[in-house]
């Protein structure tokens, strides 16, 4: 078992290292000079060069990469190139809570709505209700979030004179104001996720419904509601929760656009800024952070699976 964990651990580490190479190469290949992100005028080449030297982007790429790698291994992700008075670590610390909250609320919403819908849909399989629920929820996956978001913002303002707060306040400073900022974006992302939750709940429930113990329960004369709630839901919940965990990376993608639209200073909008300003350090920092989270989560899941199933270890 220990051997398995070590092997998987090393593999995960290598994955994160490969990510760093990919991102490093891509962002340096993107045309645009970080020094010029700040300028609104021409400056002589000599001055430009001096500014490049100041932030250390005039060295050859391998040198830059090795320097970055060395620092990172020592736990130093470096300075943000664009907002150069801040470190990458401090920007991650500022922005991650925003995104984490958004994700948590979206998952909460999708669970509260998606699971009951999935159960109903399965219990009423192939009825009109089933079709309606399926179409409505699958639409959540099909409707572009930026389009839906814009519609909500514009018509919320026009018809109700309503807008979510225009300044983000951390949860621990003012919970009410904070949740006011989050409900609409969480709704949009949650709707998106809801379709996945609903579909998986539906198929998990259908799967369970075929089992003998359900037939037994029905044969015992239990009411259908009791069967569904007590026997089906509990057994269907396990695969659904596993799926939800997998959706975090997918959701992180959705946050980019939604955070931009609702003016939330999270990882998504920060990654947009990092790319737009060619902030090499920040971009690397964000992607490495997310990749490490993902890989660690996968590793934990694998280890848990291995612990319960000896066959996996031998593979």
């Amino acid at each position: 078992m220990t051997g398995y964990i070590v092997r998987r651990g090393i593999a995960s580490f290598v994955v994160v290292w490969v990510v760093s190479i990919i991102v490093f190469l891509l962002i340096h290949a993107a045309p645009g000079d970080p020094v010029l992100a700040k300028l609104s005028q021409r400056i002589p080449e000599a001055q430009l060069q001096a500014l490049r030297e100041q932030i250390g982007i005039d060295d050859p790429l391998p040198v830059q990469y090795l320097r970055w790698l060395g620092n990172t291994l020592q736990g130093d992700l470096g300075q943000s190139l664009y907002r150069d008075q801040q470190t990458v670590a401090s920007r991650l610390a500022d922005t991650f809570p925003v995104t984490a909250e958004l994700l948590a609320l979206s998952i909460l919403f999708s669970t509260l709505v998606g699971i009951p819908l999935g159960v109903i849909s399965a219990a009423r399989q192939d009825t009109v209700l089933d079709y309606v629920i399926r179409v409505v929820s699958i639409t959540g996956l099909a409707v572009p979030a930026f389009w839906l978001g814009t519609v909500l913002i514009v018509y919320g303002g026009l018809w109700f004179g309503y807008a979510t707060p225009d300044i983000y306040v951390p949860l621990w400073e003012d919970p009410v104001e904070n949740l006011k900022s989050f409900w609409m974006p969480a709704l949009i992302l949650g709707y998106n996720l809801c379709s996945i939750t609903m579909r998986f709940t539906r198929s998990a429930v259908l799967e369970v419904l075929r089992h003998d113990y359900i037939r037994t329960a029905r044969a015992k004369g239990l009411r259908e509601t009791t069967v569904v709630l007590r026997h089906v839901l509990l057994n269907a919940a396990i695969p659904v929760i596993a799926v939800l965990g997998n959706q975090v990376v997918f959701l992180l993608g959705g946050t980019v656009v939604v955070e931009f639209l609702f003016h939330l200073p999270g990882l998504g909008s920060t990654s947009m800024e990092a790319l737009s300003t060619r902030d090499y350090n920040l971009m690397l920092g964000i992607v490495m952070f997310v990749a490490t989270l993902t890989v660690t989560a996968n590793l934990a899941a694998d280890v848990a699976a291995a612990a319960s199933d000896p066959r996996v270890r031998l593979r």
Partner: protein
Amino acid sequence: MNNLACGVTAAPPVPGEATMREENYWKRALRTPVTRRRTLALGLAGGILIACGDDDDDGKQGNGGGDGKLPPGFEPVPPGISKTLVDYRKKYSSYRFADLAGQADGPQSGGTFRYSTYPGVTGWDVTGPEGDTLASFASAHFNGLLTFRMNDKENPDNLYPAVGDLAQSWEQKDDLTVSFKLHQGVKFHDTAPVSGRELTSEDVAYCFKVYQGTQDPTKGIAQQPIFSEVDKIETPDKHTVVVKFKAPAAYFLNSLMYPVAVIFAKEAFEKPDIFKKTPIGTGAFVLDKWDPPNVHSGKKNPTYFRKDPVSGKQLPFVDAFEAPMLLGNHPQEVAQFRSGNLDTLWVQGKTELDNVVGSVNGALGQVEIPPPGFQPYMVLKLDKPPLNDRRVRRALQMAIDINGIIDSVAEGLGAPGYAQDYSYFGRNWPWSIEELDKLGAAHKYNVDEAKKLLKEATGAEKGMGRPLKVMVSTIPSTGTDVAKLMIGYWRNAGIDVVLDEYGVQDLTRWSTALFAKQWGDLDGVFAGFAGPGMDPDQYAYGPLNSKSPRNFFWVNDPKLDKLTVDQRRLFKEEERRKALEEVMKIDLGEAYRIWGVNPYKLSARQPWAFNVLDTIHAWSNVGWGQKSNEVVWINQKLKKA
């Protein structure tokens, strides 16, 4: 009353009329009925405004009085007006604000002013590469020596008369010497390490030396052009600064109004960590929050030295300003304005102005002419065939129907584009569409001629023989629409155009192309910003001299190089005007830059916010006018209602 009210002592105008348009502007304006300022004041809808503007307004300027009367000849807007330009100016012009509910209560203290700004700066190093952009943020926290007049409600110029900021008075002693007398008892913010000490002439001299960039060329990047002719800076006493020049610098005083040359404290500058993070100046607001891309806010500076030049009351009026960084996210901005969160909003287009003003209770709209520095144009790769041929460039300009763009995208509220301070030529800015021919033959829409020129120059049967590849933004704005329409007209003239669009993700690609000339296979880049300019020099030497840092048009013409330097040396307005006219003629004739349309700036504001848009025009809170935050006031009674 003016000298007193403006808080400046008049200095004799030297030499002659042309020296400066500064503190004794009002006297001059009265003496000579049509001066440059005056004509500016009349604006585009000259006909109407002349009727009321040719006035003896000495006694009734100012926002504080609020006598509730409309200027003579100015009728209240009838209901259901037709949507002509003139009607819009009538309906939305700042003149209307004389008669507003709550105006008569006069400037009141208190409240928070909220507007939308952008996260486009990374810190507060005003001497660094961002100095130019920082101008829009820094003037809330810092002061310069001179500034432009605000509260000038009766005279909505688009360029401004100078008034003293840190300088109490100033004097052009001779062609090579200017001296400034500073206000006494001005204190820096009470923030370590400066901790509220008094400002002296030494501080000014220190900052000016940094801005010259002679010690460290990476400092003063934005300011070097202003200070390039400075020879020596002397401080004969604690409150006097004397600047000596190597060559006559007629542009210098006006340029100081442009809020890049702000005064900071030496001890803050020497601690880069603090200097980058905290603006410690003498300005009206002390930094509260700087948390991009979330919010920028400031609290009232309790020891601020300036009094309102109009009402004589202590500035700033509001207790704080708070600016969420929403710019670039227009749907969100509009929703925030509608919900009452924002006090002011730039709108995009006449219809949107109607929609927004119509849907928010009591909201007011305003149409203003922007200064020449803000408008869409295209930068050409001038050395790449066939664009190095004058005929091709002229054909590109001729193929554009300026009138068509004004009528469609600008919804009638626009003027022919050209970034030259032609108000300096003793006429209205900007030229109206009827006067288009004054911008030269190339500005006249003539597809046949364009096709003929292209054929002559390139020998191609259609277009210019190969596609024209241009970089254009997808960032939503009227400017983007103007650019797209220009491209559409080129296609109509048979020119193949290939787009290289960039969005918010790729701003750096754009700035790299434009400012470092890394063009790849591009033929042109659309841009929308050539100013601002407080002096015609900004529009002459700035974009057209081959050595100027603002020449991101990459114009390289020996004739222009000479002329643009010559005009900087001329103090006599007439002589300088002649030189500038010559510059303009060459620039337009060669079609070095391709112009579209200059859409007017349209804005809405809440009924309780005063002095927000009344006079600041392009010097808005997101442009170069956080300075104007200090004169904004909120009518609390109206806001509660």
